[in-house]
C-alpha cells in the first residue's frame, strides 16, 4: 500500500504520534473524573432504588431523571450545548480543556448507570445475610456491594472507557485534538482516504489494548471462576 505525501508529512512532524497520545490522555482523564462523579451517583441510584438497601423514591426519581436527560442527548449536540458550561468551569470554550469538560458531563451519567447495573447484580441473598449479621447500610456498601460487584465494575469501566474514547473522536469537530481531529481535518476535509483509515486502525488498536488489559484484570479479580 502506498501512503500519500500527506501521511509522510504528518508522520515526520509527529502529528499522528501526538494525536494518539492526545486521544489516550483525553480519554483517561475524562474517564477518571467521570468515575469520581459517576461512582457515588451510581451507588446512590442503586441503594435508593426500588429493592435497594435504603429506598428513597423521590431522590432516586430525581437523580434518575437528570441522568436520563443527559444520556438521551446525542453527544455531538450535548458537546456544543455544554461549551458555555466548560467556559464557566475552565475559563475557555476552546481546545482540549473544554473538550474534557464536555466529555465528563456526557460520561458521568453513563458511568453512573453502569455502576448501578453492576451493583444490582449482587445476589440479594448475600445482602440479606449481611443485614442479618448486623451490618449497617454503609458497611454493606463498602464491605459487600462494591467488593462483590468488583469484576462487573471493572468490566463496566472498560466499556465506559471505550465509549468515552469514541466520544473524544467527535470532539475533533469542536476544536479538540487527537485522532478524531486528524481524521477530520487531514483525511475528510482534504480527501485523503488513507489518513482516515490510518486513524481508524490506530483507534481500533487502542480500543483492543484497553479491552484486553481490562478484561484480564476483571477475570483475575473474579473469585467465582473455578480454578
Amino acid at each position, binding site marked *: 500500500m502506498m501512503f500519500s505525501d500527506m501521511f509522510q508529512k504528518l508522520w515526520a512532524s509527529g502529528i499522528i504520534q501526538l494525536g494518539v497520545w492526545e486521544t489516550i490522555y483525553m480519554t483517561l482523564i475524562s474517564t477518571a473524573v467521570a468515575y469520581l462523579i459517576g461512582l457515588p451517583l451510581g451507588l446512590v441510584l442503586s441503594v435508593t432504588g426500588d429493592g435497594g438497601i435504603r429506598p428513597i423514591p423521590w431522590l432516586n426519581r430525581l437523580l434518575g431523571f437528570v441522568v436520563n436527560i443527559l444520556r438521551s442527548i446525542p453527544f455531538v449536540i450535548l458537546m456544543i450545548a455544554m461549551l458555555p458550561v466548560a467556559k464557566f468551569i475552565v475559563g475557555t470554550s476552546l481546545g482540549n480543556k473544554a473538550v474534557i469538560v464536555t466529555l465528563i458531563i456526557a460520561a458521568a451519567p453513563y458511568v453512573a448507570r453502569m455502576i448501578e447495573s453492576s451493583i444490582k447484580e449482587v445476589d440479594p*441473598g448475600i445482602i440479606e*445475610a449481611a*443485614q442479618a*449479621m*448486623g*451490618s*449497617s447500610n454503609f458497611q454493606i456498601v463498602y464491605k459487600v456491594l462494591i467488593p462483590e460487584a468488583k469484576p462487573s465494575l471493572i468490566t463496566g469501566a472498560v466499556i465506559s472507557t471505550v465509549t468515552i474514547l469514541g466520544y473524544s473522536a467527535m470532539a475533533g469537530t469542536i476544536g479538540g485534538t487527537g485522532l478524531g481531529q486528524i481524521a477530520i481535518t487531514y483525511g475528510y476535509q482534504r480527501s485523503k482516504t488513507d489518513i482516515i483509515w490510518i486513524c481508524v486502525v490506530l483507534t481500533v488498536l487502542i480500543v483492543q489494548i484497553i479491552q484486553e488489559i481490562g478484561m484480564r484484570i476483571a477475570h483475575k479479580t473474579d*473469585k467465582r471462576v*473455578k480454578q
Partner: protein
Amino acid sequence: MIEIRGLNKIFPSKNGPITALRDIDLEIQDGEIFGIIGLSGAGKSTLVRCINLLERPTSGEVLVDGRSLTQMPQKELLRVRQTIGMIFQSFNLLEQRTVLQNICYPLEIAKVSKNQAIARAKELLELVGLTDRMLSYPSQLSGGQKQRVAIARALATSPKYLLCDEATSALDPNTTQSILDLLKEINTTMGVTIIVITHEMRVIEQICDRVAVIGESRIAEIGDVREVFRSPQSDVARNLLLPHGKSYETVTGGTRLRLVFEGEVSERPIIANLVLECQTPVNIMFADMRDIDGKAYGQTLLELPDEPGLLERACAYLNAQGVHFTREV
C-alpha cells in the same frame, strides 16, 4: 427466650394487601431446637425473618431476652442482630472472599481486632471440619461445605440463637444428615438455641424438640414433636405426615385407620396379626417408619372393607395391642 406476640405481617400489593402471617404467638425456650414447618407459601420464611426484623411486622411484638426489637432504635437492633446467627437455603456466602474471610465478616462488623478474628475463625473451621479449605473461595466448595462455612460464619460472634431458613433444602440426603448432626452437636455442646424452618418432616423429626405447624398464615398447631407426630390435630400437620393423603379420598371408599407404632410396638407384626385375628383383608395405603430422637416411630394408613362389626373388632384388637390409632375421615 424469644417471644412473638400477636404478630401480623401484611404485604401491600397491586391486587390489594396480602396477609403473610396472622395472629402469631410463639415462645421459644433457651436451649431447645424449635422447628417451624409448613408447605411453601405458608409464611414460615417471613416468620423467621420477623425474628431478627429482616421483615418488620405490621403489628405485634418480637421480644428477644425480654427486649422488644420492634421498639428498638436501628443502632441497637444492629447490635442485637449480631447475637442472632442465621443460615440460608442458598448459603449466601460472599463470593469474592475466601472461606476464612467469610467467617471473619461478622467479626469485622462487631469490631473485633483482625488477629482475634482470624483466631476465632480458625476455631470455627475446626468445629465444622473445613480447616483445609480455609483459603478456598465459595465457588470451589460443594453445597454441604458451603453450608458448613455459613454455619461457622453464623456462629462467629458466639450468638445465643441460630436461625436456619430451609438450611438443608438444597442439599442431598447424605449431606442433609451431616448438617443436621452438626446442628444438633452445636445445640448440645454450645447450648445455642436453634430455630429450624423447613418443609421436610424428616428434618423436624431428627433434631427438633418442639414444632409449630404453619398453614395459611397461621399457626395450625404447636407442641412436642412426638406428640404432633402421634396425633396431629390439624389438617396441615396430617398432610405433612401423610404425603398425598388427600388424593386417596377420591379413589377409594371404605374405612381408614391411621396406626402409629412407637418404641416396642413397632417390632411386633401388628397388621399381619390383625388380618388373622379379624379374618379380613386390609389394604395398606401408606406406611412409613421414622427415627425420632433414636426411637423408632412408624405409621400406617389402613383401609378396612365396609363390613358390619369389623371396625369394632379391629379397634378392640388394636386397643388390646396398645397401638395408638385414629380414624381418618
